[in-house]
């Protein structure tokens, strides 16, 4: 590996097939179709930097996912970066809506985000506990804890994917659509990595089926018991985290170790 600016250029060059073909091409297709639909309905496409950034960020997250068959990049991104790229459109939209005097829809959007994110954070920490890393490329390790955490991720996602019924400009619709596909692929990636099935095809089919099941389950449970569902799930995940931290403590990895040794 050479050092210096060449390294950066080389990485950008190697990323081109990911951006334009697979999986970025898929995102671009979704984006183009959404924009095309708006155009055919005769909607005015308002071009502004916030809208462009809102479309580009989830697209990039989608392109960087290490799905099967992607071109190799030697630098991975981690779960936290991918998640914040995927969620950027929502934050921008909430801020913008509020600025333009639509505080009701902004508050609804923010409430959806804030209700979903604690569980995603807990699930991400659990995933990191199970796999020993937050890097997307390193998450494929079948384990009970990993599967539990990935399922919790999917359950939390069922709330986050919900769109408040506000009417959106074409660009923001496109950003939502790209974000949606990115989230689905990311959650399937997490589930496929942890499912203990022998073949790649089997893992992905299983992951998609499980994801649909969990999304439907999360949605219907949330309909039935409201916010108590989120609170319960959070509590459950916190408990799981506590147990896994205790396991780390007694198994002796991490900062807790030397503390245990001391006593």
């Amino acid at each position, binding site marked *: 590996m050479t050092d*210096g600016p060449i390294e950066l250029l080389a990485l*950008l060059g190697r990323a081109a097939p990911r*951006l334009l073909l697979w999986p970025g091409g898929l995102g671009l297709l979704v984006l183009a179709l959404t924009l*095309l639909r708006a155009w055919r309905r005769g909607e005015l496409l308002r071009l502004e930097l916030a809208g462009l950034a809102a479309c580009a960020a989830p697209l990039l997250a989608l392109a960087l996912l290490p799905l099967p068959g992607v071109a190799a990049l030697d630098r991975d991104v981690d779960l936290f970066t991918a998640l914040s790229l995927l969620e950027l459109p929502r934050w921008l939209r909430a801020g913008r809506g509020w600025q333009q005097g639509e505080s009701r829809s902004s508050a609804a959007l923010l409430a959806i985000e804030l209700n979903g994110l604690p569980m995603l954070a807990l699930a991400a920490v659990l995933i990191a506990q199970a796999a020993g890393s937050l890097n997307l490329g390193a998450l494929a390790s079948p384990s009970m804890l990993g599967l539990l955490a990935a399922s919790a991720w999917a359950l939390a996602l069922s709330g986050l994917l919900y769109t408040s019924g506000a009417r959106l400009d074409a660009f923001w619709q496109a950003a939502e659509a790209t974000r949606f596909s990115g989230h689905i692929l990311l959650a399937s990636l997490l589930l496929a990595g942890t499912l203990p099935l022998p073949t790649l095809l089997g893992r992905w089919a299983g992951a998609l089926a499980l994801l649909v099941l969990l999304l439907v389950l999360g949605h219907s449970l949330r309909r039935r018991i409201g916010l108590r569902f989120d609170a319960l799930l959070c509590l459950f995940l916190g408990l799981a985290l506590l147990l896994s931290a205790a396991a780390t403590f007694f198994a002796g990895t991490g900062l807790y170790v030397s503390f245990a040794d001391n006593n």
Partner: protein
Amino acid sequence: MARRRLLALALALALLLASLPLPQLVRDAPWRPALPRQPLALDGLSAFFVVLALAGACLSLARGVPAPWVVALVAPLLLAYAAVPLSLTALGLGLAATVGWMLARRSDAAPEGSEWRAWLGGPIDRLPGPGWLLPPLLLLAASWLLRAGGSWRYDSPLAGAGLNAAVFVLVLAAALLGVAQLTPRAPLGPLVPLLLAPAWAYPLLRLYALGPWNNGWHLAALLLLGTLAAWSSLAALNARDSDACRGLLARSALASALLLGCLGSSAGLAAASYGLLSYLLVAAALSRPQLPGPPPRDEIRWLLTPAVPLSAPFVASWLGLAAAAASGTPTTALVIWMVGLLGGLLLALRRSLATVSAGLAALSMLAGIASPALLQLLVVPLIEQLQGGLSPFGELQIWPWLGLAMLDSGRREVATVPSLAVAGLLLVLIVIVYLLARLLGAQPVAEGTDAQTEDEAELWARLRREVFWLGGGDGEQTRGP
């Protein structure tokens, strides 16, 4: 007056630029001028704090603090303690003298609307209470204990012998009390968060120079500082008064930076140092509620929150999460995450809280995207020199032209953010989307009118009602989407 401030700013900026190479210059060996008894010594940690103090001075002068002379007083104080090997003693004495002097001034009875108050500026109407003397006194006590066990000087070979639980508890208590008193009601008003922030991190981090910490100390410090950070950010969310909210927000950011410093690994130290840098930007935004002139566009506010990838607070949160994950303490990761999320949300959505100028936002993005270079330049020397006191649980890896990674004790990558590459790819994608949109006939449209009349209180009341963990969440009212 304006000319004097401009002069002060130019001077501070020149000093800052001149000090930037300092950490690299002292990387191999601390700088000791050949004076009798060697009263001065500058190592990586001191050099970093010199840069930090000067950056704070520049930012506060640029933000138009009402009293350039206060900056002129406090910045050299910070420089002095960072360069003196007796730092705990010097800091304790300096702070005690400053606070004592201010107390004496108060007993002179500053009448209403006096010049005194105008000098301090900002929304303060209270001068320091005697509680402010406590942290400097604790530091003095700690340095006396160090002397009793070994030596006053941290660079003496005997220094490590004096490090015991009592010293640690005193220094930690001083840091906790100092940070906990960080509110806008503090003596120097809005200046304190900016300029005295490093004062509470320095003594604690300096303890690594004396030797490794006992593991119980790590956990105690993590517990206390984590509680302080989490509690402050939750309290900030519920604060009605925007002054109180501002102080709590600054406190939670500073406490979370200190928390990372207590992880005791080089990853944690890097995260803490970068956290202090990013804290300066946030504190600069908080330091002025209103800027004269037309208000800048609101979207800019998001650039100072962790919500926007590659902004400085984002990189600070990322470093914190990754360092916590690398050291195997998931609870720390959750605290960092919560503090980042709530702080960002408050900064972005409470207009009365802070003014984010375009320059500050640009600085935040620059510091975030160029974080590999910044860390390499300023932070790596201090990590290398404090290595003796650090644990192997978490290590920072820098690819100067790509980004950052965190390694765990087995040298596996725990988290990676190729910040420069991500920024480049994002730019490429924005262009592609732009071309695609132009192809479909999109038009640049003039921005709609800004309706600034919306009620902030309503937004927050709604959020409190509809988010289950913000307190008072009532599941019955919002059943089902």
